């Protein structure tokens, strides 16, 4: 079943092969640390090692749907080396071309130079890589798109104005670059390294890393190795590794399983595969499911959304997981698959405690079913954080209200994040509102009950009094 033990990816136009058995590198060594161990790839910087600054941004190239390469910016500090198997790793060193002693800058680099968009220069390689992915995406250089592209790249020097100008200037007239010129060759190389490998198993003396291609294989690995840690985008566990030097002995990476990815219409709703990236979900929401958009518009950063998956966000079962309140309000159902077959779990039953879900040791989350929203149901959601972009919720709320012809509330879900050890519904408030009409006065009264439902913590993000006040206030959005 396993037919490959050597990691292969493209870098600097060549196939890189790593056999972990004799390597100082672990499969879970981050791409950032791998790059910084090389003699000539120190342009990629470590700024925070937790995906909050983007100095380590690199771009992954993969065959896209249209026969072209799709370029995605990712944070290399949270990317396990083994997970880039079969992909093209593009770093800052690859943008410019050398012709003899001359350096020909990539248009992205030229724009940054011309607009004086680097000061100390430390964030610049990451910014250049995010802009490179943007350049290749063909997206319009509107302020919204530029902010969306760069909200995962912190700069402490410029105040961003020169960077915004560079992005506008750069993307107002795109021209083919050397990546286009080499595209067919690159695609051919990618095909070669991917066809050589069905499922992979990378073995290091201290770590076994499974990278299966099929769900069946994944389930078997999970069954045979009950302690194996499942990762998909690795954005959560990589931080623990970076900060606490916790190296997992066994990792099951399900990111190569095509069947787990994608969104399809099913019956009266949509089925979202657990391996679907948050970015793909965001694109889907923008085109076909606007109720999801507010939560996804402020979900982490582009780099993280490209890596993180809906399954990862849900299975982490964090009280501040951005998508969880939404799942409560939409009445989503979770499809769980294990050694003994499938079962469906209601969203609310999936979460059992602080960062604890209901999956048994042999089970995986396969996907979620999101029913269509009835016409007479009002969905609203809001995430409150200190900074709008790339911040974790202090408090979040997603609500669903069903009203009859007279406007009387017949069904209500108010799911709060950040108010308890898990995402939790405001039972007292819901009960109070049930059978009433939505008026400013009613909601104002309902607001007073929030302290009966929650007694939130005070922490680095906010105090108990702020959380309670905001949780109550957010109800006013219903009557806005």
């Amino acid at each position: 079943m396993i037919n490959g033990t050597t990691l292969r990816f493209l870098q600097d136009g060549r196939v890189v092969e790593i056999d972990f058995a004799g390597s100082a590198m672990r499969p879970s060594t981050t791409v950032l640390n791998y790059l910084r161990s090389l003699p000539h790839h120190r342009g990629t910087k470590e700024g925070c090692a937790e995906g909050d600054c983007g100095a380590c941004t690199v771009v992954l190239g993969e065959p896209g749907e249209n026969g072209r390469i799709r370029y995605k910016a990712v944070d290399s500090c949270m990317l396990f080396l083994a997970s880039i198997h079969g992909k093209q790793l593009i770093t800052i060193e690859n943008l410019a071309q050398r012709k003899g002693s001359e350096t020909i800058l990539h248009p992205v680099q030229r724009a940054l130079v011309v607009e004086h968009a680097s000061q100390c220069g430390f964030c610049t390689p990451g910014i250049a890589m995010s802009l490179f992915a943007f350049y290749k995406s063909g997206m319009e250089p509107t302020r919204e798109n530029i902010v969306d592209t760069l909200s995962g790249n912190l700069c402490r020097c410029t105040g961003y104005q020169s960077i915004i100008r560079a992005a506008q200037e750069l993307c107002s007239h795109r021209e083919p670059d050397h990546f286009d010129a080499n595209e067919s060759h690159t695609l051919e190389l990618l095909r070669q390294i991917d066809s050589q490998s069905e499922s992979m198993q990378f073995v290091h003396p201290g770590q076994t890393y499974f990278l299966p291609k099929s769900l069946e294989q994944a389930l078997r690995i999970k069954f045979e190795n009950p302690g194996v840690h499942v990762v998909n985008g690795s954005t959560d566990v990589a931080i623990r590794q970076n900060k606490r030097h916790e190296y997992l002995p066994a990792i099951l990476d399900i990111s190569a399983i095509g069947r787990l990815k994608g969104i399809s219409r099913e019956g009266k709703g949509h089925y979202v595969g657990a391996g679907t990236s948050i970015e793909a979900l965001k694109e889907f929401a923008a085109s076909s499911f606007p109720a999801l958009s507010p939560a996804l518009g402020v979900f982490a950063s582009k780099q993280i959304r490209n890596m993180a998956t809906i399954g990862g966000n849900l299975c982490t079962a964090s009280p501040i997981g951005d998508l969880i309140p939404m799942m409560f309000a939409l009445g989503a159902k979770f499809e769980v698959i294990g050694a003994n077959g499938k079962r469906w779990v209601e969203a609310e039953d999936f979460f059992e405690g602080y960062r604890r879900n209901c999956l048994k040791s042999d089970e995986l989350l396969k996907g979620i079913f999101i029913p269509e929203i009835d016409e007479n149901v009002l969905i609203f959601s809001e995430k409150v954080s200190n900074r709008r972009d790339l911040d974790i919720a202090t408090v979040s709320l997603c609500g669903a209200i069903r009203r009859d012809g007279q406007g009387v509330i017949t069904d209500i879900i108010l799911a709060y994040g950040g108010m308890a050890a898990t995402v939790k519904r405001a039972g007292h408030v819901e009960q109070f509102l049930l059978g009433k009409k939505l008026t400013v006065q009613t909601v104002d009264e309902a607001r007073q009950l929030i302290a009966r439902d929650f007694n939130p913590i005070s922490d680095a993000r906010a105090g108990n009094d702020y959380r309670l006040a905001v949780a109550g206030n957010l109800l006013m959005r219903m009557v806005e």
Partner: protein
Amino acid sequence: MTNNPHHESAIQHVTGEAVYVADMLPTGQTLRGRVVYSPHAHARIVSYDLSEALKVEGVHDILDCKRIPGDNQLSVVNLDELCLADGVVHCVGQAMFLIAAETDEIAFEAEKLIRVEYELLDPILTIDEAMARGNRLEPPRRIEIGNVDDALKRCKHVLSGELKTGAQEHWYLETQAAVCVPGEDGEMTVYASSQSPTETQMVVAGVLGLPAHKVVCEVRRMGGGFGGKETQGNHVAAWAALLANATRKPVLLSLFRDDDQKITGKRHPFQSIYTIGFDDEGRIEAYMVDLHADVGIAADLSMAVLERAMFHAENAYYIPNVRITGHTWKTNLPSNTAFRGFGGPQGMAVIENAMDRVARYLKMDAAQVRFKNFYGIETRNETPYGQMVENNRLFTIWERIIASGNYFERRKEVENYNRSHTLYKRGLALTPVKFGISFTTSFLNQAGALVLIYRDGTVLVNHGGTEMGQGLHTKIRQIAALELGVPLEWVRINATNTSKVPNTSPTAASSGTDLNGMAVKNAVDKLKERLSPCAKMMLNEVCGSQTEGDITFKDGQVFFTHEPTHRVGFVELVKRAYIERISLHATGYYSTPGIQFDKDRGKGTPFHYFAFGMAIAEVEVDTLTGRSKTLRVDIVHDVGDSINPQIDMGQVTGAFIQGMGWCTTETIKRGSSGELLNHSPDTYKIPGIGDTPEIFNVELLPLAPNPKAIRKSKAVGEPPFMLSFAVWLAIKDAISAVGNHEQEPDFQLPANCEVVLLSMEKLKGNG
């Protein structure tokens, strides 16, 4: 291009070729250094055991304070900061042990095996606790003018209050780092991320017990400094040097982000109490303020920071009766340190908040009240410390920004908006900045340079300033090229190196270009004087004449000023000069004239000149969450005759956004034991790209030459930081709108969501 050349390292930045400390690869085996620091704010070290950790394979050495060959001291000012803890730890983050290992991972594993037994002692964690225990760093300082007690008795209106301003983490993108390479005969070469190479050199020499001439410090560039590497970059360098000395191998010590945030000092939090007296028109007659700074565990630069806070306590306003008292309180927290503005922001915030309060009290427009109190041109221009405000640009700037920012129209629009909206409120504010330029520690106002001309005509400039992104090297390169009359490409700026230019002052106080630019000009002037006779000889040979006259150096050529038609190339001149045995290198030196300050009397002329600016900000505040959004910002800022307008624009916008972060989202929170709660960007939020205003108009004040500085330019690094008070006070204006401006809102800095919401809830009667 000559007016606006891009950053001298721009190509290296965008290609990833630019080398930072952690990117260096010295020859041979480089060990990784790790600092083991105190988890407690105050504790006695009862015992410790390094033996298990030393057994870990790949660990080369672990040092405690007994292994320091020289002085166990990091401070160059007050000698109150141990390099490694000796018996007692005084703050969370205080260094205790140093590990040298083959990898970071091995060092981390070794740290886990170090056993320390502590006896916890009672810590002082706040200014209030320090006051209660009388734990002062130094006696209070005072600056006074007029008679504030009498004046306050006479004033028709008197208001008193308190303002807290928070700490701020520098969040340079490149964390503190140093590589130390041991050499022969005890030599140590330090590649540092330091704003102050000479102090780094001296501190390293001190801990190693070496004379200064055996230690070289080199700084190619920093990935951001902002004051955070003015003294505290020395610490990491000293730790790395001790390990390199003990192992006789190169050692790289680069702090992990969370460690950097926990260990290093921040902008000083202040707690200030003020009384302000004024008339019906809003003219301020008297102002009394007590500025209380939390200095942390050691002096570091705190007395200078306090002084600058005091020098800026009245900001741009002439007040006839002023008493400013500055207090420094020691706490068991990492020593607070320099941060862009250096106390200026903390001092100014109090008067700006008070001005806002006066306007609300009198039901007047706050910008009008400010305008009425601006320093005058010929009269009303004496500062509380006795220096006259010269070349006052406040009125010129006011006129421009009131017009370009359309202030009074927008004031009406904001009022209209607030009348028709309840869930969102808008606010508008205009704030000025007057900022004194010079180190207030007068002896630091000196700089050196060493300019080398090679036989091919290319020029290598060494100077004492360091590059941290501010564009200093770019401006110096421009200055050298312009003064020497050669193309920019012929000039390179060397890494700052204490073996080329000794006794450098820190690159700080916005003075980098002023001081080093002048020193470079001085060196170039010497070279031109030496080359001129040779140039005359060559020109006369060309023309077959015996002309005398001044020589002009321009466009890579030299010629008689009175006869530009006959020219000799600079390269030919240099080649000939070498043959003629004329020295082609020169040192330069500059010290700022006419500045002094008498600390005891609180009088003097501490500043060479002042920089001025003004900003208007409009914000929208969500009354349900307290979140604010900056909608529009207009800035007019005075940079003299800019040497490089694009670099200056970058400084203005960058400083403004950094200031906006301090005023809004950047909150430092500590737990009950003094531990830092937000020790990573996960919870410590500096502004992101989406936080910048959608409309952001920045104008450099045109036609405003500064007679006091190099090429009539003006310092720019710090002053625009304080323009961000416009955002802070626009937020207050929006909060105030919730109560129809009838009540003074609770307010502090930062005005984060929590502060804003709870203040609004109180106005709504919910608080």
